[in-house]
């Protein structure tokens, strides 16, 4: 059975043109987006295998050598029809405990951590689940914005099994006072949708007296064809 998906957008997604995030004015298309019925181009998509992981693992804590508060982060990837998405490519990246990325573009003089590579890469299991070990990242300032500090966050890139089921997002931490001040998180108009980007503490994921467990579930766009509307 096929269904018609609502167009991507609305209050549960950030607008392409977002006042709170100054850079969007030059990159958001001004012309209306052209409605396109889903064709085989959109309902097919790249399939990834172990060779695409290139040896990047699921342990950002690098065998407990990275400085910071250790955490286990796990969740399930579903599609908007509620079906688990197995074999989704999940790419994760984050700053270190002092809010510094291991990337040459990050020129802020915060300390690097020699054991920190800052990335994880995996394929979801048969139930769409993932699990990584990492450290809590630090906040960092956005250059040339006055006093805007990004709250601690972890970047997620996901590819489900269709070109249409592609998502890049960020995960935040519960209770952080910077969350309410963040132009990027607050660019999502709907409060429930913002809350779904905030991980939940989950003691069932704890490693006893070692690492704190958090859960973050992700919903990708559905994979079906859109029927023609007559």
């Amino acid at each position, binding site marked *: 059975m096929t269904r018609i998906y609502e*167009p*991507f*957008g609305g209050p*549960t*997604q*950030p*607008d*392409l043109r*977002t006042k709170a*995030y100054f*850079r969007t*004015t*030059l*990159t*958001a*298309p*001004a*012309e209306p*987006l*052209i409605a*396109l*019925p889903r*064709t*085989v*181009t959109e309902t*097919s998509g*790249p*399939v*990834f*295998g172990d*060779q*695409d992981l*290139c040896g990047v693992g699921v342990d950002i804590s690098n065998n407990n050598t990275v400085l910071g508060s250790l955490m286990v982060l796990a969740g399930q990837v579903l599609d*908007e*029809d509620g079906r688990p998405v197995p074999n989704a490519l999940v790419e994760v*990246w984050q700053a270190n405990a002092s809010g510094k*990325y*291991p*990337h040459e*573009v990050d020129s802020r003089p915060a300390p690097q951590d020699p054991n920190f*590579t800052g*990335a994880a890469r995996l394929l979801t299991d048969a139930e769409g689940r993932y699990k990584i070990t990492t450290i809590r990242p630090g906040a960092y300032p956005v250059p040339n914005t006055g006093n805007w500090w990004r709250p601690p966050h972890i*970047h997620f890139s996901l590819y489900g099994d269709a*070109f*249409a089921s592609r*998502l*890049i*997002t*960020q995960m935040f931490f519960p209770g952080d006072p910077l969350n309410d001040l963040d132009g*990027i*998180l607050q660019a999502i108009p709907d409060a429930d*949708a913002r809350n*779904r*980007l905030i991980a939940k503490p989950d003691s069932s994921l704890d490693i006893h007296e070692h690492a704190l467990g958090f859960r973050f579930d*992700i*919903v*990708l*766009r559905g994979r079906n*064809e859109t029927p*023609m509307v007559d």
Partner: protein
Amino acid sequence: MTKPTASQTLGPFYNYAFLRPGEHDLTKGGEHGPAITVTGKLYDGEGNARRDFLMEWWQADASGQYATTANAPFRGFGRCITQPDGSFTFRTIKPGPVPFNAGQGSNAWQAPHAALGIFGPGLMRRIVTRIYFADEDNSACPVLSLVPEARRGKLIAKGDGSGTYTLDIRMNGEGETPFFAE
């Protein structure tokens, strides 16, 4: 039915987490047809060339089939990150025509094309466009015909006769590239 998770910007500090060596080259791993190069520059609303944007490319093989396994001979997927001068380059083969909506009673075919997704700092969501080829018959493509005629040319890469196709992409402003709703 659950709402999809909200998108957030790619941000500036991601290259190390993403790019696999040679990922812009879809021809690696075998001969699948004559290799072509598709290249261009990415511009913003002020005409500035923009670096560090992530582009993702998805296409069918020469016979119009999309890959369905990770070890398909031609996988059809590529990525590149725009260079300091805003340029991007993919090495690939010409895709074949693909059906439009065969399951829904349409006999139409889409002209050879690649789907292109763009992420970057300043983009809160992916923007999606397509690349067609000037030396193919694009006159009856049911997707191109959805694009206002005056703007269709912005989706069609021009060949130099020796396998290099060029198309610039403008995200905003004068001469803006057509983008599709998702």
